[in-house]
C-alpha cells in the first residue's frame, strides 16, 4: 500500500505543487485546468493560430514526477482538512504512486540483472547494450518454442509493462474536457481536430475564391509513408481502437489530405504517418567468387518446409545440375517452371549454369527452395533496378510457412475423425 492510503492529509500547498508539476508536464499550451479547451476558436481567423490544437492534445501519461514530488512532501506537512479531494482523484493518485514505485523497482532490478549478466558473459558492464543482452539470453536459455512471444526475454521495464493514462479529471472529480464521456477522448480529439482543420481550410478556400485566387500547386510529400496502423495508433493514443474506429480515422484523414490547401496542415498530417522501411536495403547479396577458370559464381542456401537447398549459380550457358540430373529431375512441369522462373524473369536463361543440391522434403519443396536459392545468388549479379523488380515479384521473400503439427486425438492438424452417431 502506498503512503497515500495510510490517511495522509492533503494541504493546499501540496496540491498547488502537484498542479504546477502536472502543468509543466503537459506542456506550455495548457494555461489552466478549468480553462482547458481542446481546440482554439473555430470561428476565428482562418490563418494558423499559434496555439495549435495538436499541441494541446498530446495523450497524457501518468505524471510520475508530479506524484512522487507530492508524496515526498506529503508526510512533511500537516494535513489540511479544508481541501476536499475527490475520491476518484485520490484513487488515481494511489494508482499512480503504486505504478511509479513498481516501475522504479523494476528499473533497479533490470539494471542489477544487466550488470550480473554482463559479468557472467565476461563483458564490460558499462558498454553492455540491449543487443548484447538479447544475444546472451539466446545463448544461455536456448528455446525452441514455436511462438516467439513464449521465448525467454529480458527487456527494460518500459517496454514490458504498458504505459498508463494520466488522470482525465481534476481534484474535484470533474473531467477536463467533454470528450471524456465518449470513452475514447484521445481518439475523438484526433477526429475532431481533423474535421476542424477541414472546415477551417474550407473557409480559407472560400475566402480565396472570393478574392479570385487559385490554390498553389503545393503538395505534401508523402512518398514512402503510410497511415499509422491500428496498433500504432492504439499505442500512441493509449486507447483501444476498433477496426471501425480506425476506418473512420483513415477516411477523415484522407478527406483532409485531398483538400487543395492541405499543405497548410502538413505538420498535423505527418504526425499520423509512419515511414515505410525500404526492404531491399536490408538484403545482403552473396559475394561473387571466381573459380579456377575465371568464371564468377555465387553460392547460397535456402529452405522451404523441411527441404534444404544449396545452390551455386555460375556464369555459363543455361545448364542445370540438380542432384546430378538436369531439370528433368523434377517430373512435374510446375516444379521445373518454378526453378526456371527467376532466370526467365530477368531474361538471363542462358547466362548462368545452376548447380543445386536439394535434400529432404518433396518435389515441390525442393523446387521452391532451389528457386529461392537461385534468386539469392542472382542478387550478386544484378543491378539495383532488377533487384527491386525481383523483390516486387516476390522472389526474394522467404516462404516461412511450415507444416502445422498434428494434434492429439485429431487425424491431422485440424481435421477431426469422422463422427458417427451411436
Amino acid at each position, binding site marked *: 500500500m502506498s503512503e497515500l492510503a495510510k490517511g495522509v492529509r492533503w494541504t493546499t500547498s501540496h496540491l498547488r505543487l502537484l498542479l504546477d508539476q502536472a502543468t509543466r508536464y503537459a506542456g506550455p499550451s495548457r494555461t489552466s485546468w478549468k480553462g482547458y479547451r481542446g481546440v482554439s476558436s473555430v470561428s476565428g481567423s482562418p490563418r494558423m493560430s499559434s496555439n495549435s490544437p495538436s499541441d494541446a492534445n498530446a495523450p497524457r501519461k501518468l505524471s510520475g514526477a508530479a506524484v512522487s514530488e507530492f508524496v515526498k512532501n506529503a508526510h512533511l506537512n500537516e494535513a489540511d482538512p479544508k481541501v476536499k479531494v475527490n475520491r476518484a482523484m485520490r484513487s488515481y493518485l494511489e494508482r499512480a504512486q503504486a505504478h511509479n514505485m513498481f516501475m522504479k523497482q523494476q528499473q533497479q532490478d533490470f539494471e542489477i540483472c544487466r550488470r550480473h549478466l554482463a559479468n557472467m558473459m565476461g563483458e564490460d558492464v558499462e558498454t553492455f547494450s540491449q543487443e548484447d543482452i538479447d544475444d546472451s539470453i539466446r545463448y544461455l536459455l536456448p528455446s525452441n518454442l514455436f511462438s516467439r512471444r513464449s521465448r525467454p526475454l529480458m527487456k527494460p521495464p518500459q517496454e514490458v509493462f504498458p504505459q498508463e493514462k494520466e488522470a482525465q479529471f481534476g481534484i474535484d472529480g470533474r473531467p477536463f474536457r467533454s470528450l471524456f464521456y465518449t470513452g475514447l477522448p484521445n481518439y475523438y480529439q484526433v477526429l475532431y481536430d481533423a474535421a476542424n482543420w477541414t472546415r477551417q481550410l474550407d473557409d480559407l478556400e472560400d475566402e480565396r475564391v472570393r478574392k479570385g485566387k487559385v490554390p498553389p500547386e503545393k503538395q505534401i510529400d508523402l512518398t514512402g509513408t503510410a497511415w499509422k496502423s491500428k496498433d500504432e495508433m492504439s499505442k500512441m493514443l493509449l486507447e483501444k481502437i476498433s477496426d471501425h474506429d480506425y476506418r473512420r480515422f483513415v477516411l477523415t484523414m484522407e478527406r483532409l489530405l485531398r483538400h487543395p490547401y492541405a499543405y497548410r496542415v502538413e505538420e498535423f498530417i505527418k504526425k499520423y504517418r509512419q515511414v515505410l522501411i525500404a526492404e531491399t536495403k536490408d538484403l545482403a547479396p552473396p559475394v561473387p567468387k571466381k573459380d579456377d577458370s575465371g568464371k564468377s559464381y555465387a553460392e547460397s542456401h535456402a529452405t522451404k518446409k523441411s527441404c534444404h537447398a544449396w545452390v551455386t549459380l555460375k556464369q555459363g550457358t543455361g545448364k542445370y545440375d540438380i542432384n546430378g540430373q*538436369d531439370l528433368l529431375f523434377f517430373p512435374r512441369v510446375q516444379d521445373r517452371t518454378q526453378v*526456371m522462373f527467376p532466370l*526467365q524473369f530477368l531474361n538471363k*536463361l542462358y547466362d548462368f549454369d545452376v548447380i543445386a543440391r536439394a535434400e529432404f522434403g518433396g518435389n515441390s519443396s525442393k523446387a521452391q527452395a532451389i528457386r529461392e536459392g537461385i534468386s539469392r545468388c542472382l542478387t550478386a549479379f544484378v543491378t539495383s533496378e532488377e533487384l527491386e523488380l525481383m523483390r516486387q*515479384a516476390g522472389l526474394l521473400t522467404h516462404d516461412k510457412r511450415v507444416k502445422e503439427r498434428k494434434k492429439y486425438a485429431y487425424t491431422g492438424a485440424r481435421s477431426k475423425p469422422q463422427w458417427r452417431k451411436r
Partner: protein
Amino acid sequence: MRSSVSWLRLRNTLTGLTKIHVSTSSRRWIFSSGCAYQQAQPNSQNPVFFDHRPAQLSVTPLVDTSVPAHLPVVNAKRTTITRPREHTLDHEGFYYCVPPEQSDVIYGMSPNSGAFDMRHRTLQNLRFQWELAKESAIMIRKPALEVMEYVKNTNFAHPVVRYVIYGREGSGRTCTLTHLLHFFKDEGFILLHVPKISIWSRRYKEVQESKFKPGRIDLPLDSVEWLQHFLLQNGEHLRQPNTKLVTHKTYVWSKREETPAGSPLSDIIDVGIKRARYANDCIGVLVEELKRIVSESDHRVAVVMDVANALFTPTTIPQVDKTTVPADRLSLFLHFRKTLKNDWKNGVVVTTIDRKGIVDLPLRFDGGGNQFPRYLLREEGWAVMDPFIPVLVNDYSDKELTNCIDYNIETRWLQHVNAGTQKGRDELKVVSQNNPETLRKLMSRL
C-alpha cells in the same frame, strides 16, 4: 484440361486457354483453339471433327488459308526425299513424309488394316500426331542415319548384326525405329516387327496353357494380332506366286489338321489367324522357317523389336500359386528370343531397350539406375545379345528442337500466343530440357 497457373504472379507465357478438348465418349477430336467460332463454323477448309475413318494422308504439307491473326506463319524444314536410303546428315532435323501407300502397310494406322488394337496401343502418340496433321511426318535424326549407314555397308554373308538402340526416356528410340522400319521396307526386307514386347508381359489379353509343351504359357489373342500385323507388313512377299517362302516339313496341328511340307508360309499364318489355339505355335514355326529359308535364299529379314529387354524380365501374368510367370515360360518370348541369336544370315536385328516398360522389381526400385545396355539387358539378355552395336539416341539438338516447334506451329498443334516468340521457345526449351517426349507432353496442352 489444365487450369491457369496461379503460383507465378508475373508469368505471361505458357499459360492460356485450353486448345483442344477431347471428348472421350464419342472419341472425336474437337478443335476449339480457344475461340468458339471455329466450332460454330465448320467448313471444308477448316476441319472440325475427326473420326476413326482412314486418315487422308498426303505428302504435301497442310495448307490452310484461314490462319488466325495471332498465329505466326512458320514453315518447318522438310525434305521431299521419301526414300530413307537417300537421307544423309545434311537432312538431320528435317521432316519427311512417308508416302501414304507405304505408311498404311508399314504402320497400318487405319482401323481397317488389321491388328489395329496392338498398333493402337503401341504407337498411339505418333498415330494421333499423324492423324491430326494428315501426314505421316518423321524427323530425320542421327541414330537412324547411323544404323542405315551400317546396314548399307553390311556383308550379309556373315551372321546377323545386332543393334541395340538406347537412350534416356523420351529421347526418341521408338521414333528411330519407325524411320528404320520405313528404310527396311523400302529396301525390300521382310519385316519381323514387334511394336512393343512389354505389352505381352503387362497388357496381355488371354492366357492359356500350351498344348505343344506343357508348362509353357500361350497368349492366343495377342499372337493372332501379331500374325495379322506380320501379314499386313509382308503381304507382298508372302502372297507372291512361286514364292520361295515355303515350309520344309509337315506340321501336324491336330489329328485332322496339318500343313504339308512345301506349302507357303502364308498357310501357316492363315492357320494361326483362323485357329487362335495354334497361333503361338505358328509364330514359332514362322520364326524357325524364316531363319532357315533366309539363310539360304536371297530374301532378307529385318527383326525390329521395341523394348527387347522385356524378353528377359518376368511378366505380370498371375499363376495359381500367386507368383507370376517367369520370362522363360512365355512361349512368345521364347520364340522371339530365337530371332535375337546370331545363328542365321541375311538379316539384321534392331532392338531398343527401355527401363520403364519392363516388369522387374529390382529395376523399378533402383533409385534411377541407368539406361545402359549392360544394366538393362542384365545377365541373361547380355548372354544372348553380345556382341552387338550400341546406338545412342540423344535428346534434341537446338536445331531439331526449333524445327519440331516450327512443325507443331505449322500444323497448328501449338496455338499459344507466345508459341512463336523467342521467349516462348526459350521456355519450351528449358522446361523440356530438349527431351522430345517431354516437349510433346508440354505442347499437347498448349
